[in-house]
């Protein structure tokens, strides 16, 4: 299992390193490139967890489409210099960091303490063996989750209409253009 854990640690290192890059890099475009690499790392984790199809979708949709949109918008803006990249106020920031620390330690604590419980619930319902995970996934989407699927279709239509309409608005109540 040594190779497995080395791979896991390498991927987690990459993900956390680039995620920190998003947090720390004051240049928004560089932050966006960092986020792309973090998402590629997440796709690697999906592949590693035998969910290749989701890994591919992660690459195609997240890294290849959503992030292209982010980078394009940032390039259109071309912010000359980033005014206050980080929030001001020493006390407030300390509070935020403390809150984050509490959240992460609570989660980790919970995870470690509950390790026995998960073993009990696994093996409850095994996937059919011999069939491709992708096909089971597709079957589920088009039978059990078909309503959610159709609603998502309508949601995407609404988002398309909404995005076009928002970009048509000429400044709203502050109109000067």
């Amino acid at each position: 299992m040594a190779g497995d854990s080395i791979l896991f640690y390498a991927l987690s290192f990459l993900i956390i390193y680039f995620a920190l890059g998003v947090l720390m890099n004051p240049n928004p475009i560089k932050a966006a490139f960092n986020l792309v690499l973090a998402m590629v790392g997440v796709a690697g984790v999906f592949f590693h967890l035998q969910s290749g199809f989701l890994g591919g979708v992660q690459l195609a949709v997240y890294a290849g489409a959503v992030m292209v949109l982010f980078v394009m918008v940032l390039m259109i803006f071309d912010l000359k210099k980033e005014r206050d990249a980080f929030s001001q106020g020493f006390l407030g920031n300390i509070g935020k960091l403390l809150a984050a620390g509490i959240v992460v330690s609570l989660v980790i604590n919970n995870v470690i303490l509950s390790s026995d419980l998960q073993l009990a619930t696994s093996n409850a319902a095994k996937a059919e063996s011999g069939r491709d995970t992708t096909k089971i996934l597709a079957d589920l989407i088009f039978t059990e989750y078909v309503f959610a699927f159709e609603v998502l279709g309508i949601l995407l239509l609404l988002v398309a209409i909404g995005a076009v309409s928002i970009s048509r608005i000429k400044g709203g109540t502050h109109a000067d253009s």
Partner: protein
Amino acid sequence: MASIVPVLVLTAIVVGFGIFLVVVTGMLGPKLPQSELKKKSYECGIEVQETGHSKIPIKFYLTAILFILFDIEIIFMYPWAVTFADSITGGYGLQVLLAMGVFLFVFIVGLFWEVKSKALEWE
């Protein structure tokens, strides 16, 4: 079992090769004195008017946003395409076909609306 190790190894090879090329040719090339003029960006010899790119049309961004939405709808068709034959043999093919039919109808309405609303017009 599919492993991602070879993918990572190939990525490492490619990146290593690329960095090697960039670094080595950077060292091999002649080092001529740099002048201010040389550092300017190349715009066919005309004096550089604006270094920024402040006049980029919003169209590009609108195209990208519509791309994302349609891309996801297409990604939904991929699992459907590979499982469709199985569902026909399983006896619930019509249901799956109709589910995708409704989805495609929404897709077509969206596309029709985008074309109608001239969001995709480029002058």
